[in-house]
């Protein structure tokens, strides 16, 4: 049910991607997809469906066994070299002995990028202006995640990859951070890819939700979310939204119950 034509170009293109670990573990099989510039896409699927593997391949942290991945026309490694990709991990990737400001600056020290806006401006925009000289252990989980995302965005990457960045947070903080993030990405017209376990979060934030099935990971279905951005908080209780959540949840159950052709 993959509706994308992989030959039209875009921010992220994946063609016939397969990934195996050794000879016994097939993590991904024949994944094809196309993500447009400025689009926000969420990946959802049962545990072990290869979501994180897919994100790691996009981030250049794993190599595909076969198939091709392009980010803005480059290989993931080249895109990273050109500072076109930012990655926010599930656990904040912060150096304990550096303040929030120094942690964000670390990205610039490595990439040598000279973005138009300063680290301080970015942190102000992220709502942590008052805490920029705090160390990670002095910040709440939500604040740490903001710094984590600031670290991934400071060098102005066109594509932001998010691996369950709100997974460890309480529901309210998670919702607030999600709203804040999508507003930020849409305002700056960045392409976002989010790995999540939350159906609500996926539907609320994304332009499209990609449901993956497990064993091996394949695209089960792509669900378009035709609710215009920016979305208000009240949309969560509207019928359109609830119907889409139910639809994605149904697909997720189907993907979970779907048996692998191998098994």
């Amino acid at each position, binding site marked *: 049910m993959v509706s994308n034509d992989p030959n039209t170009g875009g921010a992220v293109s994946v063609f016939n991607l397969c990934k195996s670990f050794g000879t016994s573990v097939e993590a991904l099989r024949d994944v094809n997809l196309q993500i447009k510039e400025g689009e926000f896409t969420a990946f959802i699927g049962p545990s072990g469906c290869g979501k994180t593997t897919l994100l790691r391949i996009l*981030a250049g942290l794993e190599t595909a066994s076969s198939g091709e991945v392009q980010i803005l026309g480059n290989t993931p490694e080249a895109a990273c070299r050109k500072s076109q990709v930012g990655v926010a991990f599930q656990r904040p990737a912060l*150096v304990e002995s550096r303040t929030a400001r120094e942690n964000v600056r670390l990205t610039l020290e*490595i990439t040598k990028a000279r973005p138009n806006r300063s680290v301080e401006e970015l942190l102000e925009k992220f709502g942590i202006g008052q805490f920029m000289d705090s160390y990670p252990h002095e910040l709440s989980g939500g604040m740490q995640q903001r710094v984590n995302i600031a670290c991934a965005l400071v060098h102005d990457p066109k594509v932001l990859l998010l691996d369950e960045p709100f997974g460890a947070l309480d529901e309210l903080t998670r919702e607030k951070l999600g709203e804040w993030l999508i507003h930020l990405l849409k305002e700056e017209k960045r392409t976002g890819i989010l790995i999540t376990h939350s159906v609500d979060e996926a539907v609320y934030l994304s332009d499209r939700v990609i449901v993956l099935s497990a064993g091996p990971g394949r695209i089960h279905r792509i669900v378009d979310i035709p609710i215009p951005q920016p979305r208000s908080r009240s949309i969560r209780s509207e019928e359109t939204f609830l119907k889409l959540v139910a639809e994605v949840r149904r697909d997720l159950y189907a993907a979970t119950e779907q048996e692998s052709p191998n098994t």
Partner: protein
Amino acid sequence: MKEGFTYLLVFLSLPVVLFLLRAVSDLPASILPPPEMVAELLWEERSSLLGHTLETLKIALLGYALANVVTLSLAISFLYFKRLENFVTPWTVVVKNIPYVTLASILIVTMGDTITPKLIIVVLVTFFPLLANLNKGLKATDPVLIDRMRTLNASRWQVFRKVRWPSALPYYMAAHEIAFTSSIVGAIVAEWFFSSKGLGFLIVQATTEYRADRLYAVTFIASMLSVFAYIAIRLIDQKLFKWKHRN
């Protein structure tokens, strides 16, 4: 500094302990000297004691510096050359577990009363905890941070300098707390085997001459040195990790 005050109290209470021991035992002054006798000797022989102390300090500090050079070279090499670690680690375990008495005797017999065997003994006494901790610290770096560096296309040196080293530093400093004081003990043991100067030599001399007062004086000086070494490391530790204890 609260900690410093506690150590000062320990040193001030030592004469009291000696006094009490004398009160409850009937040992003569030639075996258990009164505190004032030890204090008198410390004052009268201050110039000679200072010379021997500086000699021991020189061996300890030089040996410790060498141990750190060995440790840093090995730990960094182990990080990037796994085979080297597999090859060298059994050797470090063997060397670590050879009784120092045997090793010191062999070195002294081979090289005589020169600085080299003493430095080697200090290195052997101190390098193992340093290497074990630094190696562990460098490898304990949060893999998420390493991933972050990789997505930024960081060089090996950048990953080491910006991420691995800061992560390993607490481990390395914890090893210094143990190893730095051991360097002083190592230097004294080396001098005790074969030397014409240093606190180790004084111990041998005092034993053969049945000079318990001098033995106690040297013990007092050696303890002072070790405590100062420990406090120095603690101060550096507090300075380095001030960010941890900030309110």
